[in-house]
C-alpha cells in the first residue's frame, strides 16, 4: 500500500502516518450517512447530547451574584437558565416554571436567549417566584392550591461544573463521568490565563448543514489554500497552493483531539504577501502580529502538546461540539456547533483578546475579528453545498487523507457513542 508522503519538515509517526498511529481509526473510506439521516440525528440527541458534557459559556458572562443567561438547546428541545447564586455558586436549571410549564426567563421573544441580573426569577404567567438556587419561594394565592409543599416544586436542576472558567452542563440524570474525567488528561493539562483574556467578539449563524459536516471543515487545514485561496496573496501563492498546508502534530485522547500547526502571524511575511490593510494594522487572519501580555510567567501548560519548534496554534476539539483554538501571539477563540436538525446548525464563534490598552491594539483586534468573520462565512456557503451533495446519496463512501485524521476520529466517536447507546438501550 502507498504510504502518505509529506515534506520532510512535517515528519510522520513511525507507523508511517498519523492515522495509522491510531490503528482503531482504520484507513478505509468513511460513510457520511450519519450526517444526512434524520433517524440517526434522533439517536445522536439521546446518545450524545443528553450524555456528554456541553459547554454553555464562561464565568465572565456571570460577573456578579444574580447574573444569569438563558441558553437554547434545541438539540434537547429545552432551554437552560445558568445563574450565579448568592453563594457565588454557578448552577443550571431547565427554564420551565413548575406551575404550568411556562418558559420562565425570556425577554420579548420566548425563542431568543436573554441575560441579565436579578435577585429571584418570577414567572410572567402567574407570578410564581424562585430563588437563585432554584427553590420555589412564593406562590400567589397559595391557599387556593391543594396540599402543595413548595419544597417539592423547585426548578429542575441540571448538572453543572466549571473547568478553567468554562461552564459545562450535562443533561443526564446521573452523568457517567465527572467533567474532569470526561475531559481527560490532554484537555485538563491546559492551564491558560483565560481570566486575563476577556475582550470578546461573538458571532452566530444559522446554517443549513449537519453539525458534523460543518465541524469537519474547522478541524482540518487541508482546505484553506483552496477554499480561501483568493482572500490574500499568501493563500493565492502558487507554490503554497501546489504544496498545500500541513498539520505538524495530531493527538487523540478519548473522544477529544487536537491538531497543531506552524505559525502564520503576518509580521514574518514580506509586504507583497499581505493585503495592504494587514500591514497598516499589523493584524489579519492569524490575529494581531504583536504578542499580547498574558500576565503569566512562561508558556501556558498543556499548549503545543507536540513540543514543536515553530508552533503557531493548537486546535483542541472537545467532544462533541466545542473547540478552543489557541494562537501563538496570545489570544484564543472558541467554536460551538449546536445542531438544530439533521441538516441545520447554529454556529457560534467567539474571539477573546487581552483587553486593548490603546487604539492600536484595539484596531488589531478589529481587523482580526473582521477577517475571521469573512473566512467563516466562506465556509458557511460551501458547507451548505456539501450537505446538498451528500444528501443526493449519489456517492456513499468518501476517502479521507492523513491530514483529515480529526474528521475520521469524530466520525468514529459519534458512531461509537450511538452504538454504545443502542446496545445499552436494547439490553435494558
Amino acid at each position, binding site marked *: 500500500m502507498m504510504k502518505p508522503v509529506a515534506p520532510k519538515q512535517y515528519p510522520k509517526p513511525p507507523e508511517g502516518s498519523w492515522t495509522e498511529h491510531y490503528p482503531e481509526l482504520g484507513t478505509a473510506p468513511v460513510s457520511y450517512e450519519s450526517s444526512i439521516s434524520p433517524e440517526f440525528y434522533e439517536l445522536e440527541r439521546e446518545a450524545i447530547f443528553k450524555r456528554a458534557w456541553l459547554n454553555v459559556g464562561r464565568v465572565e458572562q456571570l460577573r456578579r451574584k444574580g447574573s444569569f443567561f438563558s441558553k437554547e438547546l434545541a438539540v434537547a428541545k429545552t432551554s437552560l437558565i445558568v445563574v450565579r447564586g448568592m453563594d457565588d455558586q454557578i448552577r443550571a436549571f431547565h427554564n420551565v416554571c413548575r406551575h404550568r410549564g411556562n418558559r420562565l426567563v425570556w425577554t420579548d421573544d420566548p425563542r431568543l436567549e436573554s441575560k441579565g441580573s436579578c435577585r429571584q426569577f418570577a414567572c410572567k404567567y402567574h407570578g410564581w417566584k424562585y430563588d437563585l438556587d432554584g427553590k420555589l419561594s412564593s406562590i400567589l394565592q397559595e391557599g387556593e392550591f391543594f396540599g402543595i409543599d413548595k419544597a417539592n416544586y423547585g426548578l429542575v436542576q441540571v448538572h453543572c461544573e466549571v473547568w478553567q472558567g468554562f461552564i459545562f452542563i450535562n443533561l443526564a440524570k446521573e452523568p457517567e463521568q465527572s467533567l474532569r474525567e470526561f475531559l481527560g488528561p490532554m484537555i485538563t493539562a491546559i492551564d491558560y490565563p483565560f481570566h486575563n483574556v476577556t475582550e470578546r*467578539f461573538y458571532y452566530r449563524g444559522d446554517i443549513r448543514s449537519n453539525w458534523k459536516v460543518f465541524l469537519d471543515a474547522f478541524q482540518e487545514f487541508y482546505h484553506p489554500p483552496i477554499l480561501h485561496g483568493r*482572500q490574500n496573496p499568501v493563500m493565492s501563492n502558487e507554490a503554497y497552493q501546489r504544496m498545500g498546508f500541513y498539520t505538524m502534530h495530531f493527538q487523540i485522547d478519548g473522544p477529544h483531539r487536537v491538531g497543531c500547526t506552524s505559525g502564520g502571524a503576518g509580521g514574518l511575511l514580506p509586504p507583497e504577501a499581505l493585503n495592504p*490593510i494587514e500591514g497598516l494594522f499589523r493584524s489579519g487572519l492569524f490575529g494581531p502580529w504583536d504578542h499580547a501580555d498574558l500576565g503569566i510567567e512562561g508558556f501556558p501548560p498543556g499548549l503545543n502538546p507536540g513540543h514543536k519548534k515553530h508552533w503557531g496554534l493548537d486546535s483542541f476539539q472537545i467532544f462533541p461540539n466545542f473547540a478552543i483554538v489557541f494562537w501563538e501571539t496570545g489570544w484564543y477563540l472558541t467554536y460551538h456547533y449546536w445542531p438544530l436538525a439533521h441538516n441545520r446548525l447554529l454556529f457560534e464563534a467567539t474571539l477573546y483578546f487581552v483587553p486593548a490598552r*490603546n487604539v492600536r491594539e484595539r484596531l488589531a*483586534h*478589529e481587523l482580526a475579528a473582521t477577517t475571521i*468573520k469573512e473566512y467563516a462565512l466562506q465556509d458557511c456557503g460551501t458547507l451548505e453545498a456539501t450537505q446538498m451533495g451528500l444528501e443526493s446519496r449519489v456517492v456513499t463512501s468518501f476517502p479521507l487523507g492523513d491530514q483529515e485524521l480529526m474528521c475520521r476520529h469524530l466520525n468514529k466517536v459519534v458512531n461509537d457513542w450511538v452504538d454504545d447507546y443502542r446496545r445499552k438501550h436494547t439490553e435494558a
Partner: protein
Amino acid sequence: MALLPPEFSTLEPFAEEWCLASEPERYAKRLASSMDEMQAFYDALFPRAQEVIAYLEKFPLHELPEDAQRLLHLLYSLIMVSFPVEIWRQPYLPDTGTSSFELGEEPVP
C-alpha cells in the same frame, strides 16, 4: 458643524456616512454601497490612517472625546471595506449564497 477634529477636515465628507459605532451598521453600509463609493472612502482614508492612529493614541482608549471616537469608527469602517476594495471588487464575499453569520457582541469602543 464639523464631526471630526479640524486636523482631519479632508475626511469630513465621509464622516456622516461612515462614522458608524457598531459592526452590524458598518456591515449593512458595506452591502448597501457601490464599489466607487467604497473606493473613494478607502482612497481618502488609507493614506492618512497612520496620522489618525497617532492622533488617537494621545488619548486613553476609554476616554476618547466624541470627535476622536468618530475617527476611530471611521478606521473600523476602513477595515470593513478593505476586503471588497483590496480583493473581491464587490461588496459581498463570493460563493456564500444566502448564508449569514452575524455579530452578536463586540467591545466598546
